[in-house]
């Protein structure tokens, strides 16, 4: 399974949740598969999906799922201690770990080599870290949504991309409809 296959399996369960999607293909794939006002598409700022998701989860009570990538978490490793030390029971960080920079031509990341994000997250003090195979991601997200604690899910999937159009929606429109969904 590649990232878009994993996202497809998640649509029925995250469609109505607040979802923050990482720059590039993760945002574009979510936009193509299931565009919702409750999706916040990052159009830039690689690395900050988990930080935006955590800030959102700390500021209000609804569940928040940040769909991040291994390359982006590697870029913003400082996010993991912040997540560990600022308890947001309503926060789920889903890292689609395909061991590559998918949006830029599938160059290998260090998680595709020796680095384990699950071990790093645990070492940073994150209590509830799950690493799973791509096909088990849906079950883990269902469990995390039903639970009452912050969860980091690392979904190990294959590298590869589908052809998707860029998002042409205005960023202020994305923000505005997302904030209305948060308040709904």
């Amino acid at each position, binding site marked *: 399974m590649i990232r878009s296959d994993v996202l497809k399996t998640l649509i029925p369960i995250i469609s109505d949740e607040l979802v*923050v999607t990482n720059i590039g293909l993760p945002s574009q794939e979510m936009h193509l598969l299931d565009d919702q006002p409750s999706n*916040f598409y*990052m*159009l*830039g*700022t690689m*690395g*900050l*999906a*988990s*930080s*935006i*998701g*955590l*800030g*959102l*989860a*700390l*500021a*209000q009570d609804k569940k928040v799922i940040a769909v991040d990538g291994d390359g982006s978490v590697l870029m*913003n490793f*400082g*996010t993991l*201690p*912040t997540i560990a030390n*600022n308890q947001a029971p309503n926060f789920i960080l889903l890292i689609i770990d395909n061991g590559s920079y998918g949006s830029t031509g599938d160059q290998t990341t260090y998680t595709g080599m020796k680095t384990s994000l699950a071990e790093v997250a645990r070492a940073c003090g994150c209590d509830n870290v799950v690493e799973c195979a791509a096909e088990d991601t849906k079950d883990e997200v269902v469990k995390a949504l039903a639970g009452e604690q912050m969860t980091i899910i690392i979904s190990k999937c294959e590298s590869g991309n589908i052809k998707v159009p860029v998002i042409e929606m205005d*960023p*202020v429109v*994305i*923000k505005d409809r*997302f*904030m209305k969904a*948060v*308040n709904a």
Partner: protein
Amino acid sequence: MSVNDVIMQAMRENGIDFVTTVPCKQLAGVIEKIEQADDMRHVPANREDEGMGLCAGAYMGGAKPAIIMQNTAIGVTINALATLIQFYRMPLPMLISYRGEVGEPVACQVEMAVHTKALLDQLSIPTYHFHKPEDAQETSAILSHCFMARKPVALLMDATFWKGA
């Protein structure tokens, strides 16, 4: 009243309830007050661009955020300011310890000080330079202006200002 107390009062007057910080010696007093405040959530960040992500999320969640950092942070936050805060049109008050100005004991700090205003100007970020302790009285109005305009706004507070801490 010390400038730390004036800043705290200004943040309260503007309903700021989510503050992320990366420390600086000059900011120690105000960061301690934020940590102790029951009406503000304090989320220390490891890097200032991470802090801006936290503020963006908190803002969309209904909070009124602020970031407290040193001016050296401008060097690591230009992308976050341009592609997140400005692109999505979000307010972000930046209370900045302006190192490298007159009174600075560390020569290296001057190297970023000479670029600070030019970089903020290049980004078209409204910038206010606090040099005397009484300048702190403007904080509340500037914070209000920031949320009205939904833009990042920089308050540069130099060593002479912090003598009022």
